[in-house]
């Protein structure tokens, strides 16, 4: 070995040792993110491959901007909205593939199942798709972050706005499972608190396709507002059929969980004038437009709040890993909670002790066809609901982690 070659090898070895030293805190030398989502079922448009894309975008941007010393890997899987598949996959990822954080988890039942596994194995869960409030209440734990929205925030935004604007009597069309019940319960509370009255509710099987029977019951109730405590195809079919049966516009509909992909699928004709609450709208600021256009180029659809939240949460997670110099669960969680979130998605967002990320939400109204000037120009932002009001206050928390 010539002396020059020797020097080079020695340098390389020293560098390697040095970088090893830096990475010593990162288990397996890389940070591994699992995206466990619905890649094929009813929620695959609002989360699904778009959430996977958002994750990859977050990682690429993080590497370009922050030049981390560790490697970042992604694994993805389809949980098919089934709790058992989700928890098995999460367990397999954590035990065999050393995944550091399991993310997305649309559908509450899958989220709750994976939270249990993560707590047991001491790994982080970051949830963007699921909606139910038990995630940060009865079932809360210290390894979970519920990032984008929840049923409380939606009910609070939409039900409050509609009730205070004169929609005093309500009837609910509710998907007959945990999420629908939670949404109905949260919304009813808001309606009553704002001087409205709930005349009744009908629980429909999930998933359903023909809602005309249920809609006629809602019509017969004489309520001014029919609250749709369901999601995805159930909501779109109900809206379409309400128009068909002449229920709208005599009675108005309140979509309690609607995504921009639902509006896009239905078109503006049956949806115009509806109020809804969202954590993100692509056409709100220059920053949101810039990011969303990058997303659109690859996905050919504008991002939902779940997908935008996925990007923001992954970026926040990676920054916390870098700042903590470790992928250790408690260190990263502490760093994530300590650091405020400031990006295109949230301003001064904060992860609370119960795992709830609180940030501003937006009350929007769906535009009329005549007002929509370009593709995906769907919403008028009616109000910004400040973070402090948007989410359930800690004083009402049922999470055992909150000491009162």
């Amino acid at each position: 070995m010539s002396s020059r070659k020797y020097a080079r090898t020695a340098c390389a070895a020293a560098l390697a040792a040095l970088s090893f030293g830096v990475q010593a805190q990162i288990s397996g030398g890389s940070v591994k993110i699992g995206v466990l989502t619905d890649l094929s079922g009813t929620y695959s448009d609002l989360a699904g491959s778009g959430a996977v894309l958002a994750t990859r975008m977050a990682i690429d941007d993080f590497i370009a901007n922050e030049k981390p010393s560790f490697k970042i890997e992604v694994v993805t899987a389809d949980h098919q909205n089934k709790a058992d598949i989700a928890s098995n996959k999460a367990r397999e990822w954590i035990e065999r593939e050393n995944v550091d954080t399991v993310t997305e988890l649309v559908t509450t039942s899958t989220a709750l199942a994976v939270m249990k596994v993560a707590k047991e194995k001491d790994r982080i869960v970051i949830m963007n798709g699921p909606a139910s409030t038990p995630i940060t209440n009865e079932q809360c734990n210290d390894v979970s972050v519920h990032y984008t929205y929840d049923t409380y925030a939606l009910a609070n935004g939409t039900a409050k706005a509609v009730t205070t604007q004169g929609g005093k009597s309500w009837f609910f069309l509710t998907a007959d499972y945990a999420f629908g019940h939670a949404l109905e319960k949260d919304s009813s509370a808001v309606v009553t608190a704002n001087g409205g009255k709930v005349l009744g509710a009908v629980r429909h099987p999930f998933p359903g396709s023909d809602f005309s029977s249920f809609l006629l019951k809602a019509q017969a109730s004489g309520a001014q507002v029919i609250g749709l405590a369901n999601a995805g195809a159930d909501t779109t079919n109900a809206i379409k059929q309400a128009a068909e049966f002449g229920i709208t516009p005599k009675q108005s509909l309140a979509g309690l969980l609607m995504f921009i992909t639902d509006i896009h699928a239905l078109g503006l004709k049956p949806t115009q004038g509806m109020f809804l609450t969202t954590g993100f709208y692509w056409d709100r600021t220059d920053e949101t437009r810039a990011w969303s256009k990058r997303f659109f180029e690859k996905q050919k659809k504008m991002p939902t709040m779940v997908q935008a939240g996925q990007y923001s949460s992954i970026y926040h997670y990676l920054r916390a890993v870098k700042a903590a110099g470790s992928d250790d669960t408690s260190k990263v969680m502490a760093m994530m909670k300590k650091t405020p979130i400031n990006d295109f998605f949230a301003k001064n967002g904060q992860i609370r002790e119960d795992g709830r990320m609180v940030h501003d939400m937006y009350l929007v109204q769906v535009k009329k066809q005549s007002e929509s000037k370009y593709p995906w120009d769907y919403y008028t932002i009616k109000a910004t609901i400040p973070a402090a009001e948007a989410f359930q206050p800690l004083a009402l928390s049922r999470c055992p982690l909150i000491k009162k």
Partner: protein
Amino acid sequence: MEIFGISTALLGSQLLIGLINGSFYAILSLGLAIIFGLLNIINFAHGAQYMMGAFVAWIALTRFGINYWVALIVAPLIVGITGVLIERLMLRRLYKLDHLYGLLLTFGLALIFEGVFRDQFGISGESYEVPELLSGGVNLGFMFLPIYRGWVIIASLTVCFGTWYMIERTKLGAYLRAGTENSAMVQALGINVPLLITFTYGYGVALAAFAGVLAAPIFQVNPLMGSNLIIVVFAVVVIGGMGSIMGSILTGLGLGLIEGLTRVFYPEASSVVVFVIMVIVLLLRPAGLFGKS
């Protein structure tokens, strides 16, 4: 006026809606019954073929400007031709094997079709406007009936009873029925049984696609629209008696009505009532209400 605390107006409207849903069940279970009757194949792709009918209509309208009325003929034809190809290229090889193989093949095909459409169009689905001539509705006093829903009942009953007439009362139908009983004998009499079988499968599939076009303006056209419906339709066929033509039509309509009533009195049970009836029927009459044991 009230019956069991439910106003007659609400009851009447729910029965009418039950009849509309029953029309879909009838036309879909009819297709399944014909296919099972002659081919002994349990066509699990039926729901996917229904979905394809709706999508072909939507594509025809949005990409080629072909209107609803033309689509009502063209979509079943196109989907029916894919059925003919499936029969010729794949199903044909399975007739000598157990039922299970046909079920597995068609189930696999259903997954592939749904996957392809999901990949192309996403899951949120597409909206198909009600054709102008049938838009709006009439006030029946006890309910507001969208004209289109009325049309669904008329169209599907016409097709169902037309099909029944063709099978039970025409010469072609006689060949079909004879082929079901003893295909070797019919073949020996100089009738091209394989062609008859191909035609039957194509026709059954076309019926599914026809129901799909009928459904397009009512439901959001999405890749999984058939998979939600097909399980109920299978129950309808079992209750009616596998392979019974009139049985499947009447059972379809009847179960639609029962489901409608369940939605009035106990909506939570409306998705299982059909299966409860199926269990009872299987216990009391294993061959189904109209089946020959």
